[in-house]
Every structure is written in C-alpha cells, then in structure tokens.
C-alpha cells in the first residue's frame, strides 16, 4: 500500500496537475492515491485520534484541493501548497471544535522497559501507541512541525514554507516538541527497548 502511494507520488507532475485543472477524474484519483495516507495521518493526529472526524477532514481537504486547483499557478511546490491546505484545515477544525485535551484522556501507557528481546517488537508497537497519544496532546504549533517532519519527511525549509515562518522558528518548535515528548514519555527511555 505504501509502495503504491510512493509510486503514485513520484508520478505527480505538471501534466497530472494540468489534467486535474481540466477536471479529469483519473488525474484526481491519481493525486488522491498519492497523498491520501499522509493527509489522513495528519488529520488523525490533529483530531485527537478521532478517525471519523479525520475522514471528514481528509475529505474536506481533497475537495478544497480539487476545487482550488485551477488557481494553482506553480509558483510554489505543489506539495507546499497541499500541506498548507492540510495545516490550515487542521487548525480550522481545532478552532471550530475547541476540543480540549487533557493528559488523562489517552489510554494509559504501560511501562515497557525491561522487555526481553523477543518482546521488543511488541514493545515498539506499544511505544508507537504511546507516542501517538503524546503527539495528539501537543499544542498545534509544536505538533504540526513534528507531523510534517516525520510523516511527510519535509526539510526544515519546506516546513517553514508550509507554515509561513522562518527555518529558525521551525527548529525551535521542533526542539520544544521533542523536549515535551521526551518529558511526557521519559519512562520509555530504556536501553533494552532501543536495542542499546
């Protein structure tokens, strides 16, 4: 599935975007396939893990993308333009719902330190779940750079373009986001877990 999306993403070029601008259904679907998982992931992490809400947000983002794609003039990277839509949609949704998250809302995290090697794979899944919970609880200004870095794989410069801020601000927000994750999940700092 991921490989298919990666292949589709490589195929997104000016011609596909041009075809989308002409209302070509297949081109729309090609674009959708290329980015749906990444957009959906950010939406899930930005909506407190609510997958139904994330589906709505993802749908709205692609509708907005396809409606506005005629205005895309290629002055910036297409991905920058797309992720701006994603970031704005997630911030809009947060403002709309005014969801208040509390530390205690997530599933309690078990202490997974001191796992035997054969249990490490399972422990890693637990870590992923714990990280997901902690990410969802970060403020959007710290969470979004982390998602753009680790889900989308953007550079600091690209994140700065998407978020409309400087590279220095991106670096600072990532620093604070990492720091908050480490403090929140310090009980996972186990050498056995990380294979040291």
């Amino acid at each position: 599935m991921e490989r298919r999306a990666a292949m589709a993403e490589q195929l997104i070029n000016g011609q596909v975007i041009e075809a989308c601008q002409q209302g070509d259904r297949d081109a729309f679907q090609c674009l959708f396939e290329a980015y749906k998982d990444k957009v959906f992931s950010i939406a899930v992490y930005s909506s407190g893990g609510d997958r139904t809400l994330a589906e709505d947000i993802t749908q709205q983002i692609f509708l907005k993308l396809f409606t506005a794609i005629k205005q895309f003039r290629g002055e910036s990277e297409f991905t920058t333009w797309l992720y701006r839509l994603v970031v704005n949609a997630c911030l809009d949704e947060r403002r709309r719902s005014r969801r208040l998250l509390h530390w205690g809302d997530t599933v309690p995290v078990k202490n997974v330190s001191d796992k035997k090697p054969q249990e490490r794979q399972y422990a890693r899944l637990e870590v992923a779940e714990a990280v997901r919970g902690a990410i969802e609880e970060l403020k959007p200004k710290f969470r979004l750079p982390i998602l753009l870095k680790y889900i989308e794989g953007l550079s600091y410069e690209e994140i700065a373009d998407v978020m409309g801020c400087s590279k220095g601000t991106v670096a600072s927000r990532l620093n604070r986001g990492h720091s908050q994750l480490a403090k929140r999940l310090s009980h996972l700092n186990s050498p056995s877990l990380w294979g040291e």
Partner: protein
Amino acid sequence: MFSKHVTKDISAYCHGELSNEESKRFAEHIISCVKCRTKFEEIKLGIKLAEQLPQLTAPDSLWPEVESALGREVGIVSANPWPWRARIAVAAAVVLALSVGVWLYNRQPDLHTGSGKSGWLVTTLDGTPKIGSENISTRGSLSIGEWLETDEKSRAQIAVGTIGNVDIDENTRVRLLETQPTEHRLELARGRMSARIWAPPRLFFVDTPSAVAADLGCAYTLSVDDKGDGRLSVTSGWVALQAKERESIVPEGASCETQLGTGPGTPYFDDSSLEFQQALKKIDFDKDPTNRTAALDSMLSQSRAKDTLTLWHLLPRVNDDERVRVYEKMESLTPPPAGITREGVLNLDQKMLEQWRYALQGSWGSSGGKGIPKLGEKSLKGWPTLDLKDPAKK
C-alpha cells in the same frame, strides 16, 4: 569554551540541517558543556520517540465519497482521458527507468558524502580490503548490513558521517549496523579498530561479542580476539563499556578487558604495574575464590592514588569482606570528603559513591576538563548511577 550554548540547534543537528562547520562547532561545544549535553540527551530521546510515529492508512471508502462530492461540486469529467493516460504511462516508464538508474548508481561506491543511509566512505590505507565479496582498490562505500574485512596485508579507514573516523587494522572484520542522526553503530567481530569521534556522547557505538563500547567524546582502540574476548584502550576522553549486567567507564590513559559471557572487567590505568594488572584480571575473571583473595592482596599492595579508578569500580563488584579491604585501601590513599561515611560506602549508598567519585576524578588523569561522564541506564546490580554534576550541589 562555553562561549555560546547550542541547545536551540539540537534538533537541527540531529536532522542534519546544520552545515558541516556548524555541526563541528556544535559537537565541540556539547562535548564540554554539561548543560547542553543534558538537553541533547533529552531531545535525542524525543527524536527517537517521534521516529516511531506510524503513518496511517486512509480507508478505501474515502475515494468514493470524495468522488461523489466532487461530481456535485466540481463537475469532474472523463472526457479525452487517453492523452493524459498515455503521458502518465510514459512518465511511469521514465520513473521506472530512473529508479533502475538510481539503484544501479547506489550499487557503486558513494564517494560523495561518506555519510547517511547511502553508506559510509571507506578509504584503503594498505592492501586490498573487501566490502562483502568485492575488493576495494582505493575507495568504497559501506552500507548497512555490509561487512568490511581486511587480511594480513590490508588496512582501511571509515569516515563515520561527519562525526569521526575509524581506522581498521589488519585481519579485522567489521559490519555497519546502523547510521541515523541519533545513533551510529558498528559491529567488531574480530581484529582491531581505532576510533576518533568528535560527536556528542552516546552517538557512536561499537558492538563486540562480549560488550558494547559507547563513545563519550573520545579516541580509543578496541580489539577482539578469536574467542570473542576484547580490550579497550582510551587515548582521549571517555568510553563506556557495557554488557547486560555491567558498565565500566574508561578514561584517557586507561584500559579495560572484556570477556565473553562475563562482560567488561574493571578499568585500570595503563601505567599501573604488571602485577597490578595481572591481579585485576584474576579478580575480574577467575572463578576460583582462593585465587581471587590472593589477587586482591597483590592488587591492593600495588595500588597508587590514581588507581582509585579501579578500586572505586570494584566496590560494588566484590563481596562484603573484600569491600572492607578495598574501602580501607582507598581511604588510606585518598580519604573520603566530609559527609561520606565508612558505613555508607560499605552499604553502597549511591549518593555517597557519587560524591566520592566526584572528589576522586581529579586524580584520574587529564580529561580536558570534560568531567566524568554519566553512566548509561545499565546501572544494574548495585552499580552506582554516575552523574555529571557535583552531587553536593544538587
């Protein structure tokens, strides 16, 4: 030395967003700055955690819903799709061709960076070393999982990204296990290697059959014999030698043996007497209690003030009676500072052991003012957890 703290650059450093010059300045500062190094450890954990964040898969039902809404709002068409499809087919062919090209290119030695996922740059120093089954004449690239092997006539040098170099001696076999912003890891199966690392502590690791060497900002030589036993000698800075139940920290001018099944022994200074070193080897690895007792007698009689490095490490490793003798020898060489009691040390009070260690480190040779490094999380079975700060000031 402490001109400007670098905490704001930690994430950028780990993500390779700093220039080579900035990275070098960062590493030089962080090695000598306790405050920045502590923050570095925290942010490194944050990065490791964030790297575990999974990408999710959107449900298949999403496209029909989007398509349906698009039909209403945008008015999508399917007219004249073939020219676009033909172009996509051509584009797909181009992508495929490029992928094959990239794959073929990546099979060639990466002579450009010597870092990152594409492999570490290997330079031949003598003879014809091998990467996998291929001989390298002048330069090659070592990728994750690949073995670099030298014979009796060959030597090589590995560039560890931008953080240091490792010289590989004759008859040595090493493998690259991991290279990430938060961890670079080699495996030394046999032979000898010398590392010079100018990165923050605990970024570069070497796995051996009997222990793991964790770099704490230093230069050192590590060897492994055919039985899997090893020896670490530190020429600059500090190295932590770890196994499941033991961790020894080894400063400049000191060495430490490791043995398969036992792990790291006790560190000792290279200029200690031969009798001292032979006795320590028996204490560390001889199972016969009679031999151990005689060895302890010999070692204590040969101990100098700086050998409190060895004695301090031995405190939690010996039995109660032996601990009394080790303590009394230490007390005669360097009396413990105020607040550290005989009873506390004999009961392995961690805070007191830390305080005494802090007081002793001045006699453990020149460490460039870097201070004693922190032991890792493997402080098992009564091992004291070392800290960078003066415990009296906590």
